[in-house]
């Protein structure tokens, strides 16, 4: 037997909490029912700190740190809610809305969208930046799934589930900055992909209306993440013997 797990104690929002040394600030906050907004984080796949929604203040550091990628340490003092954090979270959300074309009224994810829910949760009543109105298309070549680049926030949750849970490696990213996009294989129509197993995990992982099941209405588009959780749990707890 190994020695006892190395336990760290830290303070989150004035509350003393203990954590395992391999945990992130986000893990510990969630365990203690402290809400930190997230978009690119998805239970079961590695965090990449892409969306910057989970920024927190850590005493002694002038920078804001992403809770999903910051490991705990002894004596750490974390603030998850402040005027400054609310300001940056709201800015980040507004920039996400301004960057692509989000028309909630006619979106398949309306009412089931993590971006939309976070926006109103953070008090976003309008977007202060000029909308870009870029021209992005859709990929409707797959027989029962579709990709609408207009709604994509480039969180790469789909890429990570496709690589690390399904192991297919179909979904990828290409380009830089505002021109970045999610592609299938080496940027070919989804329907032509030979690597895609049509498992639908990317669709289950997507926080917005970017990936959807063809022919389903907004009312039916509730994401079923229980399957993803089931697979990840089974793998981590070694419920499948090989």
């Amino acid at each position, binding site marked *: 037997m190994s020695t006892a797990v190395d336990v760290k104690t830290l303070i989150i929002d004035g509350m003393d909490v203990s954590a395992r040394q391999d945990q992130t600030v986000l893990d510990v906050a969630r365990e203690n029912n402290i809400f930190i907004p997230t978009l690119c984080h998805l239970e079961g796949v590695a965090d990449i700190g892409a969306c910057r929604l989970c920024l927190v203040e850590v005493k002694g550091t002038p920078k804001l740190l992403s809770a999903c990628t910051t490991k705990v340490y002894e004596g750490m003092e974390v603030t998850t809610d402040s005027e400054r954090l609310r300001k940056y979270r709201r800015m980040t959300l507004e920039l996400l*809305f301004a960057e692509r*074309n*989000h*028309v*909630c*009224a*006619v*979106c398949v994810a*309306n*009412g089931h969208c993590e971006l*939309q829910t976070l*926006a*109103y*949760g953070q*008090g*976003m*009543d*309008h*977007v202060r930046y*000029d*909308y870009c*109105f*870029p*021209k*992005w298309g859709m990929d409707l070549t797959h027989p029962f799934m579709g990709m609408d680049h*207009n709604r994509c926030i480039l969180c790469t949750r789909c890429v990570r589930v496709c690589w690390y849970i399904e192991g297919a490696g179909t979904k990828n990213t290409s380009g830089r900055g505002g021109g970045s996009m999610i592609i299938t294989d080496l940027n070919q129509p989804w329907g032509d992909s030979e690597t895609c197993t049509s498992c639908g995990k990317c669709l289950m992982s997507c926080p917005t209306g970017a990936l959807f099941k063809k022919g389903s209405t907004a009312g039916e588009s509730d994401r079923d993440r229980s399957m993803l959780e089931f697979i990840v749990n089974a793998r981590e707890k070694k419920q499948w013997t090989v």
Partner: protein
Amino acid sequence: MDRLKVATVWLGGCSGCHMSFLDLDEFLIELAGKIDIVYSPIVDRKEYPEGVDLCLIEGAVCNEDNLEILRKIRARTKVLISFGDCAVTGNVPAIRNQLGADNATQVLQCAYIDNAQEHKCLPGREGIVPALLKRVRPVHEMVVVEHYLPGCPPPADRIRAVLTQVLEGLSPKLEGAQLKFG
């Protein structure tokens, strides 16, 4: 206190926000006791008056008429509220912006020529049919707006929440799901 002078205006929207306003049901009667509707698609007044306290603006800014009246409204009104998603975000009317620089020409061509069954011609008459703007804009990109009332359309209880606060002399503030778009 003087009765509040309230206006409502319908720019580039579907009138759904105004329908939702009518959906206030018996609250409308309470409102009628406290405010005067001085200009609105539902009252018969041709010219936007001076000295309006509050104006609810439905719709995005799509054409020259929208822009002209909006500027007049701003000059003659104390408090503007962007009323509904088209006013707040551009929403559906602004989808044409995605078509690029000549989007106005393209949508007219599509609606009045390519898909018309008969009388294929572009609508246009000097002084009657206003020209489309190059780009559809949310209201706050063109004039200063004090408050936002999102929703497509905003549900009646949301409109009521805002109006109640205004009538109580408060600066209206919506929170949480009351701010949901769509």
